[in-house]
């Protein structure tokens, strides 16, 4: 049964990904990214990570796609609505296919014998996040703060520049 769900979610993810890299209109690409993110949340649910599925929907489905749409709006998308693929795309396709072959071979050769899935409690996850991983957690909050302040500083319009 979970194989069926996995197949549906995988089709969502792959079609969304192809939409991101192949859509002619850049807004459609952003909406395809949303579809891929929702499919990824489904994959997380099948992988027995309910909390991460929620986080994925909130952060990626909500925040990231909205930020991308905002930046499309602010950078005048109608100017480059067409011709969004550069002229070396056949080389890029060959490189991506070779990488896919390499990864598929390495996946298929390395036989994974594990067949039983196990879930983890949200409370257990929170405990390990705040005991074993407390210092990286605080550092991550610092990284977020610095990144957001840096983003504001970069975007802010200087007064001297306008004159």
């Amino acid at each position, binding site marked *: 049964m979970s194989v069926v769900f*996995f197949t549906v979610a*995988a089709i969502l*993810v*792959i079609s969304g*990904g192809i939409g*991101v*890299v192949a859509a002619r209109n*850049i807004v459609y*690409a952003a909406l395809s*990214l949303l579809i*891929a993110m929702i499919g*990824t949340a489904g*994959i*997380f649910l099948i*992988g*027995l*990570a309910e909390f*991460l599925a929620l*986080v994925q929907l909130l952060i*990626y489905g909500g925040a*990231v796609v909205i*930020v*991308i749409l905002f*930046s499309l709006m*602010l*950078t*005048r998308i109608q*100017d*480059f609505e067409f011709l*969004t*693929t550069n002229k*070396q795309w056949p080389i*890029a*396709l060959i*490189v*991506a296919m070779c*990488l896919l072959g390499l*990864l*598929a071979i390495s996946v*298929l050769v390395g036989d*994974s014998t594990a*067949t*039983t*899935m*196990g*879930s*983890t409690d949200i409370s*257990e*996850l929170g405990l*390990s*996040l705040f005991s074993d991983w407390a210092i*990286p957690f605080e550092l*991550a909050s610092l*990284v*977020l703060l610095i990144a*957001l302040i*840096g*983003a504001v500083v*970069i*975007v802010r319009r200087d007064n001297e520049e306008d004159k």
Partner: protein
Amino acid sequence: MELIYFQLLAAILFCIGVYGVLARRSAVLILMSIELMLNAVNINLIGYAAFSSFGSAHRNLGQVLIIFIITIAAAELALAMAIILRLYRNKNNVNVDELDILKG
């Protein structure tokens, strides 16, 4: 369910992201392809975390790693969007093959 499904899906999504980074012109689309690659890594990690046979400590490790990846990806996205907006304001386009002022 087997681990190999997760691994194959992650490989396919990662290669789609690689193609997008190499083939797209707009910086915003390249950023979206990078988000796809980060998601492929997350799918791989969730597979390994779910099929771990070393007890719950390893499962927690996989999920904690995914939480950190999502955090760093959000920070990266905010900074990259700021740089793209600045680029648009200064150069009036965000196509990466026209931004060649460093070319000798």
